Every structure is written in structure tokens, then in C-alpha cells.
């Protein structure tokens, strides 16, 4: 339902940047877990190097999100029940009906797993001796739980925009899936960048295939998203296309579709349509990252511009 009755939430650019960075962090963690699960010892150095990435990024994300609040000094009200707040059981603030609450807690908990991965990377790369981590950081249960929270961090903002009454955003159930796909794309692109720079040819080969598959899945989800809008009676697809005007349109089509999806699909496929030398892997990864940022921008500013128009 493209809804002209609803006011835009007026979220600003720090939100876009924050969600992009959170997506990279959670995607990088998810890819690190994938390497631990599916790779072997020869892939571990890439995983350890990748483990350095989520923690610093997850320290930046809350700052950007807090900056965009109308009352930044009160951000703890998201986590701790304020004495004046509506009654909740216990001292911790958790509204199960609010995706923003789920996301806040997921970020806090995921931050812990990111810190654990960071410490593990310090240990395994010989920068700091932390023997007590050996039994913990590669524990499959710990990794699986960390992956779960990375998943929530990747997708909660998509579910959040689904759980509004904003036109386009709330017209399908696929925003969470799209956000997870693009987070995974950015995480794999970062992993490919790291492995390429490390000269880990074997791991790079696996990651380029994984990135190709992720781009294929993301393309399918995006197509289903557009089809689901087109099948609605009230002109949701027309509303989306109308909202992709001026600067947002090229950002979506060239950035999100072109760079984030078509570049890896064309360049990394088993039978590459556009043959590229291996030296281009880092470039492809960078283009994908730019494309994912464009996707975040287009999603946020298309719906808002639609409402404002």
C-alpha cells in the first residue's frame, strides 16, 4: 500500500552509513564463520584476519545511530527500562513487538561475539597470547550463536522498515531478506578483499564462488521483491519506480543493481561473461561494497522521497 497518509520518519544519513557498516561487520563475521565451518586449515589465516574487522566497525555503528536520535543522551532507554517507561518485566528494556529493540539487543550481544573473534585473531596471529581462548573461540556452538546474532544484526533493519506503514517499505515481506542478502554480499566482498590482499589463492577461489552464489540469491530475492510489488493492486511498483527519481534512481539501478549484483554475476561466474584477470578481484570486491552502500542509500531515501513527494 503506497501510503500517502503516513509521515516520513526523517531518518538522516548517519542511519544509512550505520546500517551499511553494521551489514559489513555482521557479513564479515558470517563469512568468517563460513570459512571456519566449511574451509580447512589452509583457509584459517584469512578467517583470523577477517576476525579483526567486526569489532571496530561495531564500535562505530552505535555512535552513528545515537547521533541521529532526537535525544542522544537517552540512548540507554533502549536497553534499560527507564523509571517512567511503560511497565515491562525486569530492569531491562525489551519490547518483543519492536524490531528496533531486537536490533539494539542483537548489536550489544553481537558486539560481544565480535570482541571474542577479535581476541581470537590477536591470539592466532601472534599479536597477543590468549591461550584460554582456544577452547572457546572455535567452539562450533559459540560460532553458531555468534552467526545467529550476526544474522539478526544483518536483517533487523530490513524487518524494521517492513514493520512500518510506509509505502513500498511495508508492501512486501522481503525487506529483511534483502538486507540480509546485501549484508552477506558486503561481508563476502570484504573477505575476498582480505584474502586477495593476503595472496590466499585457494581461499580467494572459494570466496569468489561464494560471492557469485550470494549475488545470484540476492538477484532472485530482488526480482521476487519487485514482482511482489508489481502484483499488488494498488500500484506499489509504480510508487517504487516513481520514488526512484532524481539522484536516488541512478544510485539504485547503477549502484545497487549494477555494482552489487551484476558485477559479481558477470565477473565471477563459473563461465565468466566478462573475463577478468585475478588481479581484478579486489576491484570487484570494492565495487560490490560501493553497490551495497548504494542499496542502503536507495532503500532509505526512495521511500522517504516518495512520502515527501
Amino acid at each position: 500500500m503506497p501510503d500517502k497518509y503516513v509521515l516520513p520518519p526523517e531518518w538522516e544519513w548517519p542511519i544509512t552509513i550505520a546500517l551499511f557498516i553494521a551489514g559489513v561487520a555482521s557479513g564479515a563475521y558470517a563469512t568468517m564463520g563460513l570459512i571456519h565451518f566449511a574451509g580447512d586449515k589452509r583457509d584459517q589465516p584469512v578467517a583470523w584476519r577477517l576476525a579483526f574487522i567486526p569489532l571496530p566497525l561495531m564500535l562505530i555503528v552505535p555512535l552513528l545511530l545515537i547521533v541521529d536520535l532526537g535525544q542522544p543522551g537517552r540512548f540507554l532507554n533502549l536497553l534499560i527500562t527507564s523509571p517512567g517507561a511503560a511497565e515491562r518485566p525486569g530492569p531491562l528494556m525489551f519490547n518483543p513487538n519492536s524490531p528496533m529493540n531486537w536490533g539494539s539487543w542483537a548489536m550489544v550481544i553481537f558486539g560481544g561475539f565480535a570482541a571474542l573473534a577479535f581476541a581470537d585473531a590477536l591470539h592466532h596471529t601472534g599479536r597477543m597470547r590468549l591461550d584460554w581462548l582456544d577452547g572457546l573461540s572455535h567452539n562450533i556452538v559459540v560460532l553458531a550463536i555468534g552467526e545467529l546474532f550476526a544474522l539478526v544484526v544483518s536483517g533487523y533493519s530490513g524487518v524494521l522498515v517492513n514493520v512500518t506503514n510506509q509505502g513500498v517499505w511495508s508492501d512486501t515481506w522481503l525487506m529483511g531478506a534483502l538486507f540480509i542478502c546485501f549484508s552477506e554480499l558486503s561481508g563476502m566482498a570484504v573477505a575476498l578483499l582480505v584474502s586477495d590482499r593476503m595472496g590466499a589463492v585457494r581461499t580467494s577461489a572459494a570466496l569468489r564462488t561464494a560471492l557469485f552464489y550470494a549475488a545470484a540469491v540476492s538477484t532472485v530475492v530482488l526480482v521476487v521483491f519487485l514482482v511482489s510489488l508489481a502484483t499488488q493492486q494498488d500500484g506499489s511498483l509504480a510508487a517504487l519506480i516513481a520514488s526512484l527519481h532524481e539522484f536516488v534512481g541512478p544510485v539504485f539501478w547503477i549502484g545497487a543493481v549494477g555494482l552489487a549484483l551484476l558485477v559479481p554475476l558477470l565477473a565471477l561466474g563459473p563461465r565468466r561473461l566478462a573475463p577478468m584477470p585475478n588481479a581484478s578481484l579486489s576491484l570487484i570486491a570494492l565495487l560490490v561494497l560501493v553497490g551495497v552502500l548504494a542499496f542502503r542509500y536507495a532503500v532509505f531515501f526512495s521511500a522517504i522521497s516518495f512520502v515527501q513527494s
Partner: protein
Amino acid sequence: MSDLRGMFVDTSICTGCKACQVACKQWNEMAPGVPLPMEDEAAVREHRAFTGNSYDNTGHLSATNWRHVKFIEQIGPDPSTSDRSDPRWLMMSDSCKHCVQAGCLEVCPTGALYRTSFGSVDIHQDVCIGCRYCVGACPFGVIAFNQRTGRVNKCILCQDRLEIGMGTACAKACPTSSLTFGTVSDLQAMANDRVKALHARGQTDAYIYGWDLGNSGTITAGPNKGTAVKDVEVVGGLNVFYLLLDKPEVYGLPAHAALPQRNFVPSAGVALISAAVLGVTGLAAFRRNRIAENAAAAEGGD
């Protein structure tokens, strides 16, 4: 149910005098204009200039306009032609509907929005963090972000007046009784009687927006003349509800307002499925690579 308080807005007798707007502003001590930074010329122009398409110069509900009398000027049967026959003005005093299932309250991550003992939806201003999630969740575009305070505002059904046994300031000021304050059950009975009285007089376009009391009719004037209408219940019912004389959209009200949470479980479920598919394809990529590596090693060994 009998303790729930609300308002019945009978648009058929609203004269558009805006006394309710003034009373709301006065009681709640709100600034006459929108508290925007004066250096933001575009925003000031947007909110203070003559709208150019209506005698109404408020425009819409905002952080400092918790009540807004809408002027719907139907100057002819077809606005695209110069035909000025059969003109009419529809007036509607709009505000927060204090929904039985309130989207703003459901999504609030801090518990700043809460349900009062009167059934209304109020805001703890000292808890609100200004995240603006409720703004996009309200299906009516009621709740608004206040740039000056960094928090959200909307009609709170004069909670302070209710606590000392008074009614709302707007209803008190209304000179035609278009706004009536009372218990929701009494107001529903009153609204039903009013619709039936209007129908008996031949004004068959009257129906209720907010509760389904079983009334139906046909629009008798304006561009939608001849269109069938019937009572509309949205988001579990509205504690502030309306008697309308035309389609909801004409008054700027959504015909199918819905709770944003309708998407929560399906969206999260689809997201989980996509994550599972991505995980499987990631594992498949590493497996495929290993198989290719083994095949290459076997070929090399041969």
C-alpha cells in the same frame, strides 16, 4: 470497556471554526507556529505560508498542531472541470485516534508510548529518545517529530484534564457539539443514533469511521456521488472516531489502516529462509572448490 474514554467527531455539523484547534493549543501551551529553526527558510515557508489550495492554512497535523480542522473543498462534481454546480465543503476536526491497537505504541522501543487507564495513548516525554520509529508506524500520519525538543508529539486526549474529571479542551470549546467527549460505549450509541437520524432525513451518506456499527448508505453529493459506503472498523477500533459523509480517502483517512506488526513474523520468517539459503550456497561454494581442487590434484597425479 465502560471506563474507556474517547471522542465522537460528527463531521456533519462541523463548521470549520477551528475553535477546537485554538483550545488545544491554548490548553497544551503550544507555540502558534511550527517550532522550526528560523534559518531553515524552506521549512518555515512550507509550514507557515498560505497553502494555496485551501482556506485552511494549518495544512496537517504536526508536533505543535495536535488537532487540525481539515477543509475539504468540493467545488463541483468534477474538480478537473469548471462546473461549479453542487459545491460543498466538508469539515473534519482531526487528531490522534487513540487506536485500540496502536502501531506507534507497539513499535516504541523504549516504552515512552503507553496506554493510559482511560484507553488513550500518551507519551512519556522524559523517556522518548526521538528515534522516530513511531512516526512511520502510525497509519494516520498523526505522531510527529518535534525538531525543537528532539521528541515526538501528538494529541494525548488531555490526560491531565481527564485525571481531574474534566473532558478534553477541544470538545469543551466546540460550539456545535461536533466534538463530543465521553465513554466509548456511550459515544458509539450516540453515533449510531446520529447516523440513523441522518439517514431518516435522507442524508444517506453518513457512516462511522472507526467502528463497524452496521450502518451503510450511499454518497449523495460531490465527485463520489452514488458510491456505496458503510461503517469501517480499523486497527481494532478507534477511541476517537468519526461520522463521515464521503469516502475515508476524501478526508485523508486510509480506508484500510493496519497495524505495522502484520509484517513482523512473515518478514522475519522470509529473512531467516534467505539466510539459510545463503548459508547453504556458501557451504556449496567451498565444497565445489574442494571438489575442483581434488579433481585437479587427481589429474596432476595421473
